[in-house]
């Protein structure tokens, strides 16, 4: 028990240490702090490991950690709509739909070790990201044959000027995409099952983003399994494939003469009054020279059984990110720069209204954010067993980061057993955040600012999410599906409303199988 108390005290001082230092914004201080965090974590992990080694020497009856292989099939459908698309500088359609599927397979390698694979696939279509290139042409193709060989040449010409609008999806190449993800986790439990260590590795790839991650952690149970401490650390080494808004991509390729070449050759650019002009020059735009984004996280959690019917846990993460933390295809429009458009002049006065179906404003720059960010979320779960048929599940999180966002999240869930196998659970979640100090709405930023974004995900808002779930559990897994026993089926549906007008729906279906 002496060792246990030392560990608890260390974790608390570890948490206080972070809180005391959370307000600093100097990079050097941050680096020093992360070094101290790493040393503290290493000490904690070593302490817990050493303690576990001593306790593990007793010969006790061992129950397999996992009796047989288990498989989870998860599928979800998500859709959203809103009026503050970040790709078009904080206004425009945010219509998006996503279908995602995951298969999780846990395999017992022996009595003590479990290997888990999580393979995921997610396919989406997005109106706002299609507007990375919002300009659509009416085109006509014709073929000609020439020479003695009769070689056929196909030529495509524009038959009308390009037209776009932030309020509709375009046929741009980035209108959809697929995300592939793989996560592997290896966990080893000690003979007395009071100590677990794990190592994990992850890979993910989507059309403009790739990620490689790895990490590990330790968990120690003590006090007759009434108490549990977990420590873990993860590193993600990510890489952007740079995609700029079309007008800035062309400017980046051809420099000051870009209106004479390629996509903009012969295309009329208009000023605020609808007059053709050659004055558009997004000179504030500078291309990114590095595409890397690295994330280092350290997490600690403590769980405690309080009574026969109550238990809680506290979670704390510290995440340091560095590199390209901006999204390179999100436009920004400056209040102190003239406006330029492509499309039909009659829609310019109604540009900010969904009635604009024919004109798109050319970007002044892309989002620019600092290249470091420190995040510190602290969460608390508290569950109470009210009666044989009703339980109460609650969660609260406080979040702080050095970009100026603080937030509170609270959620409550009330599972009610309506029969031996069926449980229904209504749920409600409330979220509120302050704005990042670099956020301003459409055309409110000034070109003299160092950092800027019009991404409403970083604005001040509150959000409400409510819905229900239905759960079927058969602990004996009598039902069979392709030879596997169906142990659990869970369906949940939630509606999400954000105070800036964004709303979303998400439905998820999960099957949990066991093999004999």
């Amino acid at each position, binding site marked *: 028990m002496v060792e246990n*108390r030392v560990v*608890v005290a260390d974790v608390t001082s570890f*948490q*206080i240490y972070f*809180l005391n230092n959370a307000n600093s914004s100097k990079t050097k201080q941050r680096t020093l702090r992360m070094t101290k965090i790493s040393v503290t974590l290493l000490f904690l992990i070593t302490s817990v490991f050493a303690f576990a080694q001593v306790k593990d020497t007793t010969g006790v009856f061992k129950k397999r950690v996992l009796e047989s292989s288990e498989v989870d099939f*998860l599928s*979800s459908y998500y859709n*959203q709509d809103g009026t503050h698309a970040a790709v078009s500088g904080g206004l425009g359609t945010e219509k998006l739909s*996503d279908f*995602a599927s995951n298969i999780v397979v846990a395999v017992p390698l022996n009595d003590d070790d479990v290997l888990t694979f999580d393979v995921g696939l997610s396919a989406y279509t997005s109106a706002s990201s299609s507007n990375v290139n919002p300009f659509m042409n009416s085109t006509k193709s014709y073929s000609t044959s020439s020479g003695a060989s009769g070689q056929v040449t196909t030529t495509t010409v524009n038959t009308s000027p390009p037209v776009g609008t932030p309020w509709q999806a375009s046929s741009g190449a980035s209108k959809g995409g697929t995300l592939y993800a793989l996560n592997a986790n290896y966990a080893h439990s000690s003979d007395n099952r009071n100590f677990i260590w794990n190592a994990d590795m992850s890979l993910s790839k989507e059309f*403009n*983003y790739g990620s490689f*991650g790895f990490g590990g952690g330790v968990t120690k149970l003590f*006090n*007759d*399994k*009434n108490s549990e401490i977990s420590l873990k650390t*993860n590193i993600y080494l*990510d890489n952007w494939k740079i995609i700029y808004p079309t007008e800035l991509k062309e400017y980046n390729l051809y420099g000051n003469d870009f209106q004479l070449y390629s996509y903009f050759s012969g295309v009329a650019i208009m000023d605020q009054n609808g007059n053709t002009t050659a004055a558009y020059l997004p000179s504030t735009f500078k291309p990114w020279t590095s595409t890397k984004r690295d*994330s280092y*996280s350290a997490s600690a959690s403590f769980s*405690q*059984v309080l*009574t*026969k*019917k109550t*238990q*809680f846990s*506290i*979670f*704390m993460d510290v*995440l340091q990110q560095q590199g390209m933390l901006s999204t390179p295809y999100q436009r920004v429009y400056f209040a102190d720069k003239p406006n330029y458009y492509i499309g039909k002049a009659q829609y310019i006065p109604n540009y900010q209204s969904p009635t604009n179906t024919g004109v798109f404003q050319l970007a002044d720059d892309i989002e620019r954010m600092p290249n470091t960010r420190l*995040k510190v*979320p*602290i*969460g608390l779960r508290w*569950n109470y*067993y009210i009666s044989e048929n009703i*339980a109460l*599940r609650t*969660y609260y*999180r406080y*979040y702080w980061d050095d*970009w100026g966002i603080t937030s509170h*999240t609270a959620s409550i869930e009330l599972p009610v057993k309506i029969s031996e196998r069926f449980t229904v659970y209504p749920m409600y979640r409330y979220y509120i*955040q302050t704005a990042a100090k670099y956020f301003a709405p459409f055309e409110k930023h000034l070109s003299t600012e160092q950092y800027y974004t019009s991404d409403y*995900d*970083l604005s001040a808002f509150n*959000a409400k*999410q409510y819905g229900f*779930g239905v759960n079927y*559990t058969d602990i004996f897994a009598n039902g069979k599906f392709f030879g596997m026993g169906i142990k659990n089926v*869970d*369906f*949940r549906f*939630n509606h999400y409303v954000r105070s800036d007008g964004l709303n979303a729906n*998400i439905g*998820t279906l*999960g099957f*949990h199988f066991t093999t004999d």
Partner: protein
Amino acid sequence: MKKVALLALVFVVLQSCNTVKPYEMQKINDPEMKLSARTTEKFESTFQVYREGAAGANGGKSGGGCGCN
């Protein structure tokens, strides 16, 4: 904040004196009492990471691995 942390620690230590024995954990071991998010919450957490500035402290990721906030 230090006071809150200290109070929380005292509270935990006091409660730890009252150990719940393994044979008394039937209610605590009910699947609905798990101190973690449900497996099917995975996709909700993912969209929240994209649509909100905050993330983490729920046993999952707090950042990295995606082109999100």
